[in-house]
């Protein structure tokens, strides 16, 4: 069994309380960092660890930290992005619910490294129970001298606050999150300037995902070099994968990056295969925004090599035959799922969540939703697939923030890999809504055409 760095103690009764967490070695990273390391040395360890942002972009965390501007006499901020809303992703909620002190500990160490005196955890508004949990954990840590003035007798002081969002997917984009934290609509800002130069209140700011911040704790405890030994190539360390959809054992799993995708999907230690004895049709490997893959391409790359759960291997083949690690929101589709319906569902999501700032995204997502709706409900035309590709190309790359790309990719990839299923919806309009094209030649082993028209 692979080593757990984040979830090692997740099943210990009372691990959500300060005392139990502390008895399991908790807050050792705070002691080590504040008493034996300088802020720059902490940044150096995180750089050595090779940790990549766990929110979706995969940008090296240590490098992001080293970009932070440090002008004299100007406040700096660390903001934790806990606005987890990417369909398929629920790891941050899990972590905050069960082991909140890990996040608090990471926040203290990271704030120390960046020289922040005030830090915020921006939690999506629907997670009110998690907000209460974090506020309680912060109060406990403060009472024990790990937060507030002169932490552990050092001259470092830190205030940590939890900020609720208002239910907007777009606030997971870091500049929209900062706008929201300033009490405004979540409209992403034009970059540059990047938050590292002008972020919260115009001050230098770092925004990191919950899991990235939590990973700082084992990195400091064991050293960046030790952390980098886990994983494979430039995908170092462990990653939380939120596994959902038609799985026998859905849930949050911590894996060593580089685990074979087939093992993750079928072994009893992880997802345990597809529920109800069915077969796998398709996989969304990293949250709804990443390209969907048919089972055959998910399990093996186009060069017939086993696909691994790592940033590089999942991206193998680019958008032609690969996908992305994204946020680790893993959705499995069984043979009875309709790809057209799913694509329409995602398009509706992006249309709903578009902030409306950029015309290509605001209008384009709406048109994609409408066209996909008519395909799913049996009113589609053969030219609709090309129309959808055309619209998606006009959104992609033409917006301020990546929501436009995130809306375009699932549609383009679904048509690329499942075009015959879309065409079947046009040629079988009466069966399109109630029936299912089946798993055709998408699944492993291939090929087998099954058209169910019940």
């Amino acid at each position, binding site marked *: 069994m692979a080593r757990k760095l984040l979830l090692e103690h997740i099943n210990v009764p009372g691990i959500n309380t300060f005392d139990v967490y502390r008895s399991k070695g908790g807050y050792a990273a705070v002691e080590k960092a504040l008493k034996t390391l300088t802020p720059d040395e902490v940044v150096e360890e995180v750089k050595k660890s090779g940790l990549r942002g766990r929110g979706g972009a995969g940008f090296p965390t240590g490098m992001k930290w080293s970009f932070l501007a440090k002008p004299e006499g100007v406040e700096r901020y660390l903001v934790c992005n806990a606005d987890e809303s990417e*369909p*398929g992703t629920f790891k941050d909620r899990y972590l905050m619910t069960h082991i909140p002190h890990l996040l608090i500990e990471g926040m203290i160490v990271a704030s120390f490294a960046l020289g922040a005196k005030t830090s915020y955890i921006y939690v999506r508004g629907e997670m009110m129970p998690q907000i209460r949990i974090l506020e309680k954990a912060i109060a406990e840590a403060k009472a024990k001298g790990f937060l507030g003035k002169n932490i552990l007798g050092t001259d470092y002081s830190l205030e940590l606050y939890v900020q609720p969002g*208002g239910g907007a997917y777009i606030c997971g984009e870091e500049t929209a999150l900062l706008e929201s934290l300033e009490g*405004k609509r979540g409209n992403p800002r034009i970059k540059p300037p990047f938050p590292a130069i002008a972020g919260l209140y115009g001050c230098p700011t770092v925004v990191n995902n919950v899991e990235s911040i939590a990973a700082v704790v084992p990195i400091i405890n064991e050293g960046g070099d030790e952390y980098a030994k886990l994983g494979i190539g430039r995908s170092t360390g462990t990653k939380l994968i939120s596994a959902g959809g038609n799985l026998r054992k*859905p849930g949050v799993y911590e894996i060593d990056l580089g685990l074979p995708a087939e093992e993750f999907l079928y072994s009893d230690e992880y997802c345990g295969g597809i529920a109800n004895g069915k077969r796998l049709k398709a996989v969304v490997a990293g949250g709804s925004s990443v390209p969907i893959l048919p089972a055959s391409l998910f399990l093996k790359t186009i060069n017939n090599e086993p696909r691994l759960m790592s940033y590089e291997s999942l991206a193998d083949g680019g958008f032609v035959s690969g996908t992305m690690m994204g946020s680790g929101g893993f959705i499995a589709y069984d043979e009875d799922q309709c790809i057209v319906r799913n694509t329409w*569902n995602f398009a509706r999501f992006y249309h709903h969540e578009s902030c409306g700032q950029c015309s290509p995204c605001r209008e384009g997502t709406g048109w994609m939703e409408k066209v996909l709706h008519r395909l799913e409900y049996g009113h589609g035309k053969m030219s609709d697939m090309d129309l959808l590709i055309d619209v998606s190309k006009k959104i992609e790359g033409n917006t301020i923030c990546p929501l436009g790309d995130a809306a375009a990719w699932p549609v383009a990839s679904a048509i690329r890999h499942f075009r015959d299923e879309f065409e079947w919806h046009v040629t079988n309009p009466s069966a399109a809504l109630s029936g299912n094209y089946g798993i055709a030649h998408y699944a492993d082993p291939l090929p087998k055409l099954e058209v169910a028209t019940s």
Partner: protein
Amino acid sequence: MLSVQDTNTPVTFSPELLSKFADVVSRYPAGKQKSALLPILHLVQAGFGWTSIPAMDKVAEYLDIQPIEVYEVASFYTMYFLKPQGKYMLEVCRTGPCEIVGATPIMEHIEKTLGVPEGDVTPDGLFSWRGVECLAACGFGPVLQIGPEYTFYENLTTESVDKLIGDLRQKVNN
């Protein structure tokens, strides 16, 4: 329960609510009190059931910002109700991962059980329901949440939904 026509009803914030507001405002640097807007709107909604125009005007006055700055925020974020809802607002996740494990049948069942379409309030003022986008509980779908505490109900079946609605009815009657 206020109705839509009662939007001119004056709103008074209790001393308890005002002290919660002050606690929120203290989290931000001086002059950045607008940051308190989202948390304060949550507190207002928890207290009054929705965010009415008079309540938003009072919030603007409290934070020393223009009323439009409150309206534009309340209308941007989906969690703020701009009209009164049932005492219990059932919000069912309808996005991909929940959809493929049966969110639509759950919503159809809720509609049938409560007898009101999405967004409407039952005649007794107790319930309303709507489909919402991903609630980050994709491994435990279908899920629904009920404010203002946003308690989650996971792995829903038609039976568990019936029990939930029954329990809530009983809670009110007792």
